[in-house]
């Protein structure tokens, strides 16, 4: 492979991106504008009757812990909360950071005692044994932070108060991560998806670029030179990685200016950028598949939406507002795993080596290789490179 040819073609592609107003807009400005429009439209919580996964660490030391078990049964009876028991807080926290559960409640060791004290002297607070249920929430989910606390509070009130309608109770609910959650804005919740969102539009640009070069005879002209297919495709991949990197930097700069300040270190940022770059390669693959199908650059624009829209709606910040069926469908698009990993890293506080993040990275990498290979093989078969 000759580096001089690869660099010359990469430079050419970068100049095209900067100099063609339509390309410049589509790759860099459109995602930003679109993000704001969608953020405003879909900023709220979703419709329907969702089910939340709740982790429980029961420290109630009563034998048997009858009151706490009754309380957990009451939570399950809501049909909204799916209870998952954990032996210790650390395991539960790990799952919370990876998005496996949306909240954790820690039942205190005096739960049954506290409940019993209330039963015996409901009108005499001085006799009560106070206890606090700690609630940890998935900071990466606007739904979890807004919907889960009132549901649990409602169940707790109903459970302790029974029919007495008392104003106070010895068992209180305290949201352990409430301070941070309250500071989170809608932007915080959609920011991870915005990184994914921007890269998706590479599909359209790659498809247009290849079909245009085919239409105006440039692809043929390149083929007449000693440039090999490997050199040509390498230059394209390098160009689009560079474009994806610039996109990611611009999006990050924008959300940072707007107040997005994830409490993570440089390694996490580096990992996040690498993830987005890997994802961009799968979009190059989708672009090549589109360019293979499309007979003209105009058709390429339309056909590219077949790949853009599912990734956009099912795999970015938009997905959080969709039905559970649509969210399930999202698991079949690469963008879902990019957004999920970024959410885990930026909002849930997961570390790079956590199983959920590594699994997301693996799925994105494998799908990227497969999609890019399919794109190159298909395009090479029907149009030659």
């Amino acid at each position: 492979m000759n580096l001089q040819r690869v660099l010359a073609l990469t430079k050419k592609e970068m100049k095209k991106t900067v100099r063609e107003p339509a390309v410049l807009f589509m790759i860099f400005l459109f995602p930003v504008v679109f993000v704001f429009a969608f953020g405003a439209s879909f900023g709220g919580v979703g419709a329907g009757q969702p089910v939340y996964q709740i982790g429980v660490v029961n420290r109630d030391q009563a034998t048997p812990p009858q009151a706490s078990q009754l309380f957990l049964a009451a939570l399950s009876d809501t049909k909204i909360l799916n209870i998952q028991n954990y032996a210790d807080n650390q395991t539960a926290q790990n799952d919370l950071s990876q998005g496996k559960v949306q909240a954790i409640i820690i039942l205190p060791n005096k739960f049954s005692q506290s409940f019993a004290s209330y039963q015996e002297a409901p009108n005499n607070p001085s006799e009560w044994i106070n206890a606090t249920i700690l609630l940890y929430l998935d900071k990466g989910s606007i739904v979890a932070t807004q919907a889960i606390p009132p549901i649990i509070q409602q169940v707790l009130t109903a459970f302790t108060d029974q029919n007495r309608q008392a104003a106070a109770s010895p068992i209180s609910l305290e949201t352990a991560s409430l301070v941070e959650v309250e500071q989170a804005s809608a932007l915080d919740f959609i920011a991870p998806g915005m990184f994914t969102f921007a890269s998706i539009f590479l599909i359209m640009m790659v498809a247009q670029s290849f079909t245009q070069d085919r239409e105006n005879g440039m692809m043929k002209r390149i083929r007449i030179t000693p440039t090999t297919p490997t050199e040509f495709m390498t230059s394209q991949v390098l160009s689009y990685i560079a474009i994806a990197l610039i996109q990611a930097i611009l999006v990050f700069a924008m959300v940072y200016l707007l107040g997005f300040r994830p409490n993570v270190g440089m390694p996490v940022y580096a990992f996040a950028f690498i993830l987005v770059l890997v994802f961009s390669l799968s979009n190059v693959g989708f672009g090549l598949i589109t360019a293979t199908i499309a007979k003209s650059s105009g058709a390429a624009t339309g056909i590219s939406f077949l790949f853009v829209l599912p990734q956009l709606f099912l795999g970015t910040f938009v997905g959080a507002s969709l039905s559970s069926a649509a969210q399930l469908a999202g698991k079949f698009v690469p963008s879902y795993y990019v957004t999920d990993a970024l959410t885990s890293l930026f909002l849930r506080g997961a570390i790079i080596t956590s199983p959920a993040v590594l699994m997301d990275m693996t799925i994105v990498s494998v799908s990227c290789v497969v999609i890019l290979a399919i794109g190159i093989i298909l395009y090479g078969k029907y149009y030659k490179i």
Partner: protein
Amino acid sequence: MKESAIVISDLVKRFEDVTAIDGLSLQVEKGELFGLLGPNGAGKTTTINVLCGLLRPTSGSATVDGFDVQEQPEKVKELIGVCPQETAVYPYLTGAENVELFGNLHTMNKDALKARRDMLLEKMGLAEEAKRRAEKYSAGMKRRLSVILALIHDPQIVFLDEPTVGMDPQSRRAVWGFLKELKKEGKTIILTTHYMEEAEELCDRVGIMDYGKLIALGSPQNLISKDNVKNLEEVFIKLTGRTIREEL
């Protein structure tokens, strides 16, 4: 006898039920300026595409400077320069950047590339416009730029597929002058054109193709005197019963 730059033997190229080249055999000598003439659809461009390695022939063979176009296309591509029929330049690059890109694709040395770029832009009358984007060029200027892209790496064998289409008479004369210079340098040039006066002016020999077959071969003067007509266009009319221009 001079060494052959191009040897075509019983070449056939079919596209489904259309036979674009029908048993073409031809030799072009090194240093020759050879004109391939014929109406649209005669098979001229298909022949060039086969010689460039862009199309695989259905049967027959072709070699360029001894290299088989099917077996050693990478060797062939190092030797040739091609100005395709369509004006293929990158509109968002300047004239100079287009030239540099193709020089780099031929892995030219930086200094040599710069010197040859400047020389070609000057000779083709594009030096003053070199820093403007090609999208701002007139059709004739784009065509001249397209010719430069084919010649930037100083190829030994040059294929020019209707290089002067859309050019004003002055530009056309400038290109003619440059092609004559290339011939003096010993380059082999295969030129397709619809302009009979161009072929008469420039070509050592011409081959007239029709329906994929070579129907006449010789120097313009020989063909004119053999058919006892006034010019090459009349030779063509006599042979095919059609004028070339009406096919445009």
